């Protein structure tokens, strides 16, 4: 078996104060192979961002993290800042949801991009700037030479996301984590950004984690899809398999909510009834039980574990077949 590029084992993230404890991620385990593209879907608060922010060491200071996150064999949790900084931004990159605020406002685009290269590879500023220009070209930003001398506020959201993407790709990462990279953009720009991601991936063969709450975004790119609910991974399967035959009732319900252009015209778009559980609630039961159409007594008493072969796992007592 290939050595996974990212190996998360029994990761839990808790936020505790005197009165209560919140569990943002509860015992999640996953493996991402080199060159693989994994989509992660889930509602807001399902812990999908937290999981990967933990890998980048970007959680709030009071988060209590247990478990293990290994990147290319090296443990990231509890690693020294200097060691983390060697990996972050070079071999392990991340882009964020909101490109409007992710660039330092007072630095020129060229400087911000070049800084990454100067910082990690120790090349000269002149060299770094020309490499930055070439990278901007690759993410299909128009007029890259001029952009280098512009400030972030002179660029539109889509352009800024391309800049962020270029920045994260500069050091040829082995794994790029894209946390809802297109959520803040309009649909046409979204399609372009995803296209750039696809092109870059086929060129460089980097692994990609695509976090989204939108199946449409993930469906086009992902080899494999993880579905998260209430801080847990509830289903893990090959993308086309999961999209065609979801096994967890939650995945199935989520997929039903995706509006389709070809299907019958509906008076009302379907939604998932009820609310996800509060993160503080101690759960003995299946967290999805209150909203699940298939819930039985067992679901309210016993929490199902993620089980199955490595290519198809589901955490449900009564999975759909």
């Amino acid at each position, binding site marked *: 078996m290939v050595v996974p590029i990212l190996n998360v084992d029994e990761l839990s993230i808790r936020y505790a104060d005197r009165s209560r404890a919140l569990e943002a991620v509860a015992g999640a385990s996953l493996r991402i192979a080199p060159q693989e593209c994994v989509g992660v879907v889930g509602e807001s608060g399902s812990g999908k961002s937290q999981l990967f922010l933990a890998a980048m060491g970007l959680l709030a200071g009071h988060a209590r993290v247990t478990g293990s996150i290994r990147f290319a064999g090296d443990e990231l949790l509890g690693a020294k800042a200097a060691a983390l900084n060697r990996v972050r931004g070079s071999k392990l990159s991340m882009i964020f949801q909101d490109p409007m*605020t992710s660039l330092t406002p007072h630095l020129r685009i060229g400087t911000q991009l070049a800084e990454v290269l100067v*910082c990690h590879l120790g090349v000269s500023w002149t060299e770094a700037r020309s490499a930055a220009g070439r990278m901007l070209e690759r993410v299909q930003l128009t007029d890259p030479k001029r952009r280098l001398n512009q400030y972030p506020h*002179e660029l539109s959201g889509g352009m800024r996301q391309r800049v962020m993407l270029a920045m994260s790709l500069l050091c040829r990462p082995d794994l790029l984590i894209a946390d809802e990279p297109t959520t803040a953009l309009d649909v046409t720009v979204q399609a372009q950004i995803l296209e750039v991601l696809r092109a870059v991936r086929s060129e460089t063969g980097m692994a990609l984690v695509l976090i989204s709450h939108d199946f449409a975004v993930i469906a086009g790119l992902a080899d494999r899809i993880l579905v998260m609910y209430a801080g847990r991974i509830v289903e893990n399967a090959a993308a086309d398999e999961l999209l065609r035959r979801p096994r967890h009732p939650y995945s199935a319900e989520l997929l039903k909510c995706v509006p389709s252009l070809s299907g019958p015209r509906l008076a009302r778009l379907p939604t998932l009834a009820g609310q996800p559980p509060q993160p503080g609630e101690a759960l003995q039961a299946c967290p999805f039980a209150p909203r699940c159409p298939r819930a039985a007594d067992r679901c309210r008493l016993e929490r199902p574990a993620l089980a199955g072969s490595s290519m198809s796992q589901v955490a449900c007592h009564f999975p759909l077949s």
Partner: protein
Amino acid sequence: MSVFLDDATRRLRASPAAVPALLAILAIVIITLFGPWLNANNTETLDWLHVAAHPTLQNAHWFGTDRLGRDLYARTLAGARVSIAIGLVASAISILVGVSYGAVAGYIGGRTDHLMMRIIEILSGLPLIFFVIFLTVIFGRSEYLLFVSIGAVGWLTMARIVRGQTLSIRQQDFIAAAVAGGAGTGRIIAKHVVPNVIGPVIVYATLTVPQIILFESFLSFLGLGIQEPGASLGSLIAEGVGEMEAAPWMLLVPGSFLAILLLCLNIFGDGLRDALDVKDA
């Protein structure tokens, strides 16, 4: 950035008082630097023929003389030079210390922040004059020590302001992006935090200069600052107070010099604050 600066300059120009105030400040600085060339009198020669002479154009003592017959024009300009220099140097020290201290406390946060802020509170709890007297007693009287000791207490508010700004900047996505890019703490503070707090820092600094000039004058007035035969506006005013009834110009000349300088600096600082005070740059 350039757009931002253009914008700020435009707004500064639009504010009715700031530009005249700036011109007046420049005029004062030019006079204090080049004024002595216009008049042959120096600060230390005693003119026994004209002791405590009133201002006149006839005997070359344009602003009169003091009770030892020294030319008040030369002494006022020399005093203003010292006052302005102390204002600038002490402000520079307070910016340097305040910005780095505040940015480090705000960015690192947690216990470090707590500790650093408590230290500031203790220092600002000390009576300022007592502190300066204490320093002069220990290290002796010197002009440079005065620069340092005023600067050393002037940075407290600056550090608080910068820390407050840093706390909000730390939450911004671009800081998370910088961390994700593998930038170390020092680099983030220097390149991504500090340049973003520069607006409030400039504004507060322009308002610090007059405060420090006033404080220096106050110390000199009490006899703790610049010593004879040197002069600062404060020590000149202190001398003038003694002769207020017989020779009011000894008080009025350095007094109005100080008043005009402070007024202009404050008006300009206010104008600058209005010009730079934008919600989101």
